[in-house]
């Protein structure tokens, strides 16, 4: 069983270089990226087992296409794309089983909405899982993994404008869900972050 090292600090992602088709490099990619991909999928999927399944399947698929990978975007971002697509498919099929889920939830007691109640404060991960998976993935890649808009766009094969739109929509939805219970902090008047803003032209 491979030893999974600690998650590398953000900003070190682009330092990893891989040779397409190299089995040793793919093993290294797996050791480095698996925990991060798993965490991304956990933010999208409620079931840890499903997150693990989708993560493993993503690496299987990536390994099959490893020879054809082009270093246009970080390899980890490329695997993220595969994994997110897997998660989207999983959620799509899970919706078909939604009737059973609805029936299971019937009759559950309504939680207290007292914002001072720590236990009933809306869970951030639950909020992420409630929004479309592509939006949730964009948020996680940006705010947790530290990708910039260009890297996210290259990884997902979309334009930077699309990435900016997704980030903005995700932010608005999350703010609507989370802010009534705890403040997320007022957006700064001037961005102190050196990264580009959400909307890119």
């Amino acid at each position, binding site marked *: *069983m*491979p030893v*999974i090292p600690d*998650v590398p600090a953000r900003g070190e992602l682009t330092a990893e270089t891989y040779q397409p088709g190299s089995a040793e490099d*793919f*093993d290294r990619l*797996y050791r480095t990226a*698996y*925990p991060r991909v*798993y*965490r991304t999928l*956990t*933010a999208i999927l409620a079931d840890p087992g499903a997150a*693990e399944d989708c*993560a*493993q*399947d993503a*690496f*299987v*698929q*990536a*390994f*099959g296409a490893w020879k054809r990978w082009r270093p246009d975007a970080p390899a980890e971002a490329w695997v993220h794309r595969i994994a997110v697509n897997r998660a989207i498919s999983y959620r799509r099929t899970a919706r078909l089983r939604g009737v059973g889920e609805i029936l299971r939830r019937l009759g559950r007691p309504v939680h207290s909405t007292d914002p001072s109640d720590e236990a009933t404060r809306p*869970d*951030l*991960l639950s909020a992420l899982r409630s929004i479309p998976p592509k939006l949730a993935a964009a*948020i*996680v890649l940006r*705010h*947790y993994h530290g990708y910039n808009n260009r890297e996210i766009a290259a990884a997902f094969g979309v334009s930077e404008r699309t990435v900016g*739109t997704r980030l*903005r929509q995700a*932010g*608005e939805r*999350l*703010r609507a869900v*989370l802010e009534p219970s705890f*403040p*997320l*902090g*007022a*957006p*700064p*008047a*001037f*961005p*102190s*972050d050196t990264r580009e*803003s*959400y*909307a890119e*032209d």
Partner: protein
Amino acid sequence: MPKIEGDPLGPGFERRLRGELDRIQPSFPAPRYLSPTRRPALAWRPAPVALGLALIGIAAISAYAATGSPNPAVWTERVVTISHSSPTPPATSATPEVRKAAPPAAPARAPGHEASPAASNRPEPSESPEPIRSPEPGESSGT
């Protein structure tokens, strides 16, 4: 579409997101891509083998249904028999009668009666109901 300055979620969101996700530890399973049966590149290779096995199975079931025997040797013999007993054209209709008239093969003989080379030269007994009688001395040949 107006540009949005900064992060609409604020820095608190990143801290909270990092805290939530850093607590999640994967179970570090064995890499599934190393399992030869799981590799997507090999996904289609078993298909021809499976198809071949399926065809063989169908043929076996058909042969069993036709012969009533699960023994493949019986199936082979049946195929040979069918191919040899195939209907012949009218011009060669005499052939089956000649075949019928042909003497049976040797296996019918008892072990103690091995045919000697000289004996094999003897004329085979006729199937005519009346025995062939050599003319007695003094009798006319009956021309």
